[in-house]
């Protein structure tokens, strides 16, 4: 049994928002609601879900950028310093680099903070990091504004790689890039993973990217995990209706789902029941739990789907 790098035990984060301008009533919004999983060394864990399902909050919880309402996050013995061993690449490359800093200062900042390099080694280390992400050395003295989205994402990655982390959280790292650039960045990530035995937590809303990139996938909806399985299993035999409709929407551009996502919990029973096309009476009364339906295949559903057709012509 390998020791996981990080283990989340029943972690939750609730926010409280004012109902409207005049009322003092607060509404509870469960951004992350009782989630447990662990990340093993060298593994790529995909976190898939639509916007505002709590993916990014979960990432921030792991990084202690937000404090959990409930639950705990346990780091394995390999993680000695969270700020060194766990890094993140952000979604928006135009927003995640300080516009007033030169590239050299950006990628060396983590090393200066953790006092890893001295003045002499600085420029060598900077060049090494650039080589790692396949950028030329002439970028060092320029400002972020001179670069395209793909290049900025590489710079962001160089900064994340500077401290030799064990885990990198990738928050939609390619979703704002053009298709051709996406492929290059994903390939770079894979290469780095093999070379340094990195673990990735890969957050995305794009199922096809997740399928090509991840080993195991968690499907999130309204702060809860709907389904968890290995990639092949999940895409060939989805058990949860939400996973099914995400896959169908991606291949056929058709959606079976009713209505729209709503952040505020109104219903009893299963949280997915307002949108589910297969509801039965039980779904409105009892909330299901995430349980193992088959070997290593978990689903949050009373009536997991038996057969799945991709409906391709």
């Amino acid at each position, binding site marked *: 049994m390998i020791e996981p790098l990080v283990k989340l035990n029943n972690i939750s984060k609730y926010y409280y928002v004012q109902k409207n301008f005049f009322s003092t009533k607060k509404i509870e919004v469960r951004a992350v609601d009782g989630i447990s999983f662990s990340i093993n060394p060298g593994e790529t864990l995909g976190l898939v879900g639509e916007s505002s399902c709590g993916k990014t909050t979960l990432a921030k919880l792991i*990084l202690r950028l937000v404090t959990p309402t409930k639950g705990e996050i346990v780091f394995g013995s390999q993680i000695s310093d969270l700020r060194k061993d*766990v890094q*993140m690449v*952000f979604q928006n490359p135009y927003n995640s680099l*300080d516009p007033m*800093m030169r590239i050299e200062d950006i990628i060396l900042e983590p090393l200066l*903070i*953790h006092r890893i390099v001295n003045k002499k080694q600085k420029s060598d280390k900077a060049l090494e990091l650039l080589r790692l992400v396949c950028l030329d050395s002439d970028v060092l003295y320029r400002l972020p504004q001179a670069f395209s989205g793909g290049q900025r994402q590489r710079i962001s990655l160089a*900064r994340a790689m500077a401290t030799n982390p064990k885990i990198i959280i990738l928050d939609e790292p390619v979703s704002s890039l053009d298709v051709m650039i996406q492929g290059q960045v994903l390939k770079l990530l894979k290469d780095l993973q093999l070379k340094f035995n990195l673990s990735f937590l890969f957050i995305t809303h794009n199922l096809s990217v997740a399928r090509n990139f991840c080993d195991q996938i968690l499907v999130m909806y309204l702060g809860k995990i709907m389904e968890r399985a290995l990639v092949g299993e999940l895409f060939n035999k989805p058990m949860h209706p939400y996973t099914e409709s995400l896959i169908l929407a991606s291949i056929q551009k058709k959606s079976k789902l009713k209505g729209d996502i709503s952040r505020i919990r109104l219903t009893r029973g299963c949280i997915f029941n307002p949108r589910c096309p297969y509801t039965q009476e039980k779904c409105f009364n009892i909330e299901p739990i995430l349980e193992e339906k088959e070997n290593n295949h978990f689903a949050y559903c009373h009536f997991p789907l038996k057969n799945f057709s991709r409906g391709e012509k």
Partner: protein
Amino acid sequence: MKIFRNIYNNKLVFFGSIIILLLVFIAIFAPWLSRYDPSDIDLNNILAGPSFKNILGTDSLGRDLLSRIMFGAKVSLKVGFIAVGISTIIGIFIGSIAGFFGRWLDSLLMRFVDLMLCFPTFFLILSVIAILEPSITNIMIIIGLTSWMGIARIVRSQVLSLKEREFIQAAKVIGASNARIIIRHLLPNALGPIIVSAVLGMAYAILVESSLSFLGLGVQPPTPSWGNILIEAKATLGIAWWLTLFPGLAIFITILGFDILGEGLRNWFKNYE
């Protein structure tokens, strides 16, 4: 070179900075530029109108007005720079702490700012100066201590919006300390509005200094300052128009210079973003 072309293209910045640079030049080189010592009394030549000998005329003690205005520029700019320096440092400090840490600290500091803004500043300065003795040092400090609230508010609002940006999150992820985040990441990005309000603050500080000197609570004679030249001119207002016109014009041009420079910089930074 590009920066000079940009400045030239931005007419407000261009004219503003020319006026200010000219003033700074005059203030620094006043002893060499002026033909007379500003406190040389020549009783044979009192209240002389503008002429070749005394370009802007002389005052009731026969002192050369041009020299006095040039030396007054030195006093005014010195007061402006140091007072604004003090207020900017206090403003940045309070504003960034309030904006960055938020919660009760923010409320506390901002209520303090509100409190400071409630006082009629000018009377506050007057009464403090009346208790202490009026001197250039005291004036600079007191103006600095009573004019930082605007900058504090601007810095706070900048910090509030900047700290939501992803690069600040990124800095936290790599383990940057709060001080590092504020100094290395937040303040450089808030520099534009800080510079603009500092430049506009210069105009305010110079105006306050002139007003204080005019009331006799500022720079004390014989050191010339635009304010105290004006008060001496008050007695001879009917017969020597140049004694009030030219110092008044000097104040006017200076304030105008700082104002259009500040306004121009504001537009410039807006376009830059």
